[in-house]
């Protein structure tokens, strides 16, 4: 069959009859979706910033009350740094939203950039949240002469938390980023 013949067959199709649209249900869904726009990414970014700010304040109050030395303030500094870093990522993401052109390649670049943002936030959570908190708690436990059981429980909780956070990045976001990048390759090859 020649390609022109395929085109003729294609033109003959009457897609209108293949599906029927329930207009009322569609309008309701569109409205619901509209409200949901960007909510997930905003909740992750703003939520993490709020949690880290509260943690920094708690650590600061704790450091002032306990007077246990300069190390107590290190946790406050690191938490404050994560808030600034998250603000920086968010600002960059918002700025980049305007940057991409409206071609399919541009939209793919945008999707890759958004996935990269999510991965960065996930990694921030792992490296700049769990580790400083873990160090802070371990130092406290050394000072308080914690029991072996308490050590095991706390270490176990941190390992589990770290595993869950990494699992989401590895199983969900990194494969999606790779898939998007491979699509990009297919487009420009």
């Amino acid at each position, binding site marked *: 069959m020649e*390609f022109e013949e395929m085109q003729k067959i294609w033109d*003959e199709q009457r897609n209108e009859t293949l*599906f029927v649209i329930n207009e009322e249900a569609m309008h309701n869904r569109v409205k619901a979706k509209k409200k949901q726009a960007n909510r997930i990414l905003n909740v992750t970014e703003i939520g993490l910033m709020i949690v880290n700010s509260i943690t920094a304040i708690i650590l600061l109050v704790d450091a002032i009350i306990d007077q246990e030395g300069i190390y107590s303030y290190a946790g406050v500094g690191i938490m404050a740094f994560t808030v600034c870093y998250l603000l920086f990522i968010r600002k960059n993401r918002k700025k980049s939203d305007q940057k991409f052109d409206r*071609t399919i390649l541009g939209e793919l670049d945008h999707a890759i950039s958004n996935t990269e943002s999510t991965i960065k936030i996930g990694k921030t959570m792992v490296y700049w949240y769990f580790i400083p908190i873990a160090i802070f708690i371990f130092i406290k436990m050394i000072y308080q002469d914690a029991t072996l059981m308490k050590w095991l429980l706390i270490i176990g909780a941190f390992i589990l938390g770290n595993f869950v956070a990494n699992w989401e990045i590895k199983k969900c976001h990194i494969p*999606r980023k790779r898939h998007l990048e491979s699509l990009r390759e297919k487009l420009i090859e």
Partner: protein
Amino acid sequence: MKESEQQKIFDSWLKDHKGLLFKVLRAYAFTSEDQEDLFQEIVTQVWRSIPNFRKESAVTTWLYRIALNIAISWSTKEKKKIDPHSIEGMEHIITETDTQSDDRIDWLYGEIKKMNEVDRSLTLLLLDGFSYKEMAEMIGVSESNIGVKIHRIKKELIKRSAKYEYHGV
């Protein structure tokens, strides 16, 4: 833009160009749940895009670009497993009709489904008569790049059609 005005444009676009959206739906989503999910994503994006439409391109070009962007990105997402009990009583936004479709059209869609996501887009645009220039503008790559890809797609489709004709379906 007023919401009523946006609604009017949305309804008219959908009335005049729903066939285009259904073609994208058939090429990218293969179960009724997936078709429902993808259609919802596409119409939501079409709605959002209305205030940005500057009439620099034809409505069909604009809609195709949106629908293909969403379909490509949708196909990279992990699909949610839908519990049939959870959607019982829920209103479906699209329903497949019992219309008998042409075997040759089914064969064409079957071949399109076998392609990668990018080639599927190009094939739909090609079959709908878009020029290389329009495709290049829509996709964001050079015309020569489009030309190479289209040449490969046409060659492959013609080769496969020989097998189809041979079986006399």
